[in-house]
């Protein structure tokens, strides 16, 4: 079941490559949040404890409700419209994303020959981290960068499960809160940016170059 959920996670990454709509980015975040919470619950199902349940509930609430709701609020407040106008759909991005996902699974498979890792969750995690980075590089809208960052964080969370490194639950929870604060701060920064850079594009942030 964990494998099914992580493969679905990879499919959301492919969807990420074919859409430029901000509302679709938010939907992807909601889906990924639910999938990650599901994987976390299943991974520790045999070793049930209240702390794991609290973390899973925290993941579900923060990643599928609070953060997406906050991003929707920013989109509405700033009247950002529906899409990343600077980059239309481009098949090259889809090819790159597919390459990232396949590459991640190849790495995961190779690594599993030397050390015990769960190939599919680990591969999906690496794919998530790389895909978030790719989104940041390929899209110009600052809000898309925040979404890319959140996808990296989702991949990171999966990585923790993939390598079966059971972190103290207080740390997982602190990480979750930290994520929320980060998004909140970035939201404030974007709000400020909008007043100075009306298009909200990273291409405008070149005033400090050499």
């Amino acid at each position, binding site marked *: 079941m964990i494998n099914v959920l992580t493969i679905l996670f990879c499919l959301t990454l492919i969807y990420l490559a074919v859409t430029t709509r901000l509302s679709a980015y938010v939907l992807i975040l909601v889906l990924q949040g639910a999938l990650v919470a599901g994987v976390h619950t299943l991974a520790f199902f045999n070793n049930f404890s209240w702390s794991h349940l609290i973390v899973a509930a925290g993941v579900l609430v923060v990643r599928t409700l609070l953060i997406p709701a906050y991003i929707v609020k920013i989109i509405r407040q700033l009247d950002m419209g529906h899409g990343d106008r600077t980059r239309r759909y481009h098949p090259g991005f889809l090819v790159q994303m597919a390459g990232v996902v396949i590459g991640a699974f190849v790495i995961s498979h190779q690594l599993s020959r030397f050390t015990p890792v769960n190939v599919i969750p680990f591969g999906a995690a690496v794919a998530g981290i790389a895909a978030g980075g790719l989104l940041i590089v390929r899209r110009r809208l600052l809000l898309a960068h925040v979404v890319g960052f959140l996808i990296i964080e989702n991949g990171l969370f999966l990585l923790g499960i993939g390598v079966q490194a059971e972190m103290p639950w207080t740390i997982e929870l602190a990480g979750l809160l*930290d994520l929320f604060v980060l998004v909140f701060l970035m939201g404030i920064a974007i709000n*400020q940016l909008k007043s100075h850079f009306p298009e909200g594009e990273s291409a405008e942030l070149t005033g400090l170059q*050499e």
Partner: protein
Amino acid sequence: MITILALLFLPLVATAFTAWKRSAHINHGVTLVAGNAHLLASLHCLVTRQNPFPGDWWLAVDPLAAFFLTILAHTFVLVVLYSPGFLRRMEGPEYDRSKRLFYPALNFYLLANTLALVVQQFALLWVVLELATFSLAPLIFFYRSKESLEAVWKYLFLVSLGLVFLFVGVLFLGLSARGVADSAALVVPRMADAAPQLNPLWLKAGFIFALVGLSAKIGLAPMHPGDIDATSNAPAPVAALMAGSLRSTAVLALLRFYQVVSPTEVRPFAQKLLVFAGLLSLAVAAVYIWRNRNYKRLLAYSSVEHLGIIALGVGIGGVALLGALLHLLFNSFGKAALFFMAGNMHRSYGSREVNSITDLMRRLPWSGFVWVLAFFYIVGTPPFGIFFSELFVLQGMIRTANWLPFTLFLALLMVIFIGMSRVVLRMLQTPSGVPPQSVAKQERWNLSHALGLYAIAASVPLAIFQPAALFDSLRAILATFGVKL
């Protein structure tokens, strides 16, 4: 107990109090008291080498933490002393909000960095480092201009991305300890004790991610751009704080990883990585210092250079590690002096461009004088402290017969020296286009000059007389990395 109160409780109370109280005068007094109490507590820990925290806590002040706490507190006190003059100059309603936030953010910065220095658990360290990053955001955004907004955005984003890599490093470190008794809790001393049993493959991967992740916060190439923009666009006291203490906090985090790697077979690999990162940073600094026309960016690149030297010293090991630690201390002194004077110049000329600074010695004689002294200090001229710490790093390279890094290090230092001299001499000697009488606006001696001179001069007795309290502590730190002098 009093030490714990001074280190953690007082900054917390000062943060809450200054956030509540609107009077800048009272807030300055409270912040100064908190800073001085912190400095005394840090010095107490450094000299006595006693850990004030109970043994079963995840917080501890070991000699390494005590040394870094002293650097943090000393820089903080200098910055707090400089701040009233700076805030008085910031007139106008556009600065009201920033001024209100200044002292609470400063106290919160002290608290977050103290936590990062005393925490002994890797995952918690990651969380606290994130906190330390956020604490700076309102301070970097002080001017509320387009440039400072861009700088704070880039800084937050790049450092947060770096911290994601750091978290991967922490995960891999945890993975390397799988099956090893008592190390899964990721507590630094326990992991260091069990280090030889850790899985070398994951340990190696963990160190790579930790180095890459922390590079953004330390300001090592190629992850330095966010740090450069933030340092060069932040107000002078904030830039001094970043260059003198925030980067040190990130270096300590890296040293915590190195502490675990040190007793293992992964050590030579980690050392090579550090040497490479150090030389790359020096090379990047050399290129950009030559190209630069903004004196605050010049200082920011000088920080990249010096952090590169520190990484190089840690990578070489032995006596070079001692040099790296001393370099951290002396760099914090020099950067405070340089950024304070840069703040004075910015106020007087209204520009950060080198071409705008003319007749410096006539227009700002005191600031110009301290600026020149600080320049000689930072490029490693004797008898200033940086000269001695660089000498230790060179000595380490000679002892270990690292001839290629030795040659590159000297060559790059030479290029940087010439590059910085061009800029500084130009600022001093370029005559103004207006008649001398109108330029000669005699500057009065003020506290910023005294602070700058103190910061430069204080390194001399420390380096020459090598006080036993400091050097015994440094020897204890070296012992944790298996180095005996």
